[in-house]
């Protein structure tokens, strides 16, 4: 993913997050879940589960494009360092993705 595709991914993911974050905050502000069970129930509804999963997916994609841009800009002076940093970034983001799956999937399955 580079060039135009990365550019589009960055814009589309930003648009989704810009819509999702305020809507989610409004939801929990005006309809606050009463207790932990209500929280789980909210997250387990198919629409919410899908929206949250999509949010974290585009968040990771957005972070990849943005951080990759920073590395391509500032670490232009050494191919090896640039490759290492990009690999560490990819590993970190994949790790975060797996951690999110581990946290979110049990909520949906229960």
């Amino acid at each position, binding site marked *: 993913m*580079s*060039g*135009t595709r*990365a*550019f*589009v991914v960055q814009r589309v993911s930003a648009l989704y997050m810009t819509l999702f974050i305020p809507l989610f905050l409004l939801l929990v502000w005006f309809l606050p879940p009463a207790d932990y069970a209500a929280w789980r129930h909210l997250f387990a509804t198919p629409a919410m589960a899908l929206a949250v999963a999509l949010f974290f997916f585009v968040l990771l994609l957005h972070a990849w494009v943005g951080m*990759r841009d920073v590395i*391509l*800009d500032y670490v*232009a002076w050494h191919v090896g360092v640039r490759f290492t940093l990009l690999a560490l970034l990819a590993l970190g983001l994949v790790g975060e993705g797996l951690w999110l799956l581990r946290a979110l999937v049990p909520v949906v399955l229960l």
Partner: protein
Amino acid sequence: MRFLIYRYDPESGAKPHMQPFELEPSPGMMLREALLRLKAEQDEGLTFRHSCGEGVCGSDALNINGTNGLACITPVATLRQPVEVRPLPGLPVIRDLVVDMTQFYGHYRAVKPWLQVEGPEPEVEYRQSPEERDRLDGLYECILCGCCSTACPSFWWNPDRFRGPAALLQAYRFLIDSRDGAQEQRLAELEGPYRLFRCHSIMNCTVVCPKGLNPARAVGLIKRMMVERQL
């Protein structure tokens, strides 16, 4: 009037330094004239490029008090003292205020800044409607002084791979020319993470352009064409 001018002589082996000068300005004096007088009256070794003296040739682009501009159309009376004059940033210095613009021209050449026509040549001249011609306004006027590209942080970071605002402005000038038939090849050449997409709309290019052009807008429009090409 006090000046601080960047001096570098590669043959001396000495490090670059800022040399102070003093000069009594004449009314309406431009920086180019001040440099010419300093050279004639105080230090014949002072080296800088200049030619037309009226903002047309683009030879005397310099970094003046931290901002790129053309010395010939910069009135000294408007400048804060001491007037710090340096070579354009981000390019190798050959001597004093003269930079090596090979890389800059290389990027310009890479966007193939000429009309490429597909099919047989017409028997009459290539025709354009007034509206089609109007689309070239704000693009063709570029004098390739280099103020924009050398003010661009993305160009400082990746001067070998990022085309830079000057070359991209010309890329757009030919992309939207109704007579050009190589739009697909031109866009394909700009694909990838570096050549076009290192631009983050910092907009230094537009701020410093001595001809009042807007390379940042042209880059944004090329990005839009790139996206539309993918759809």
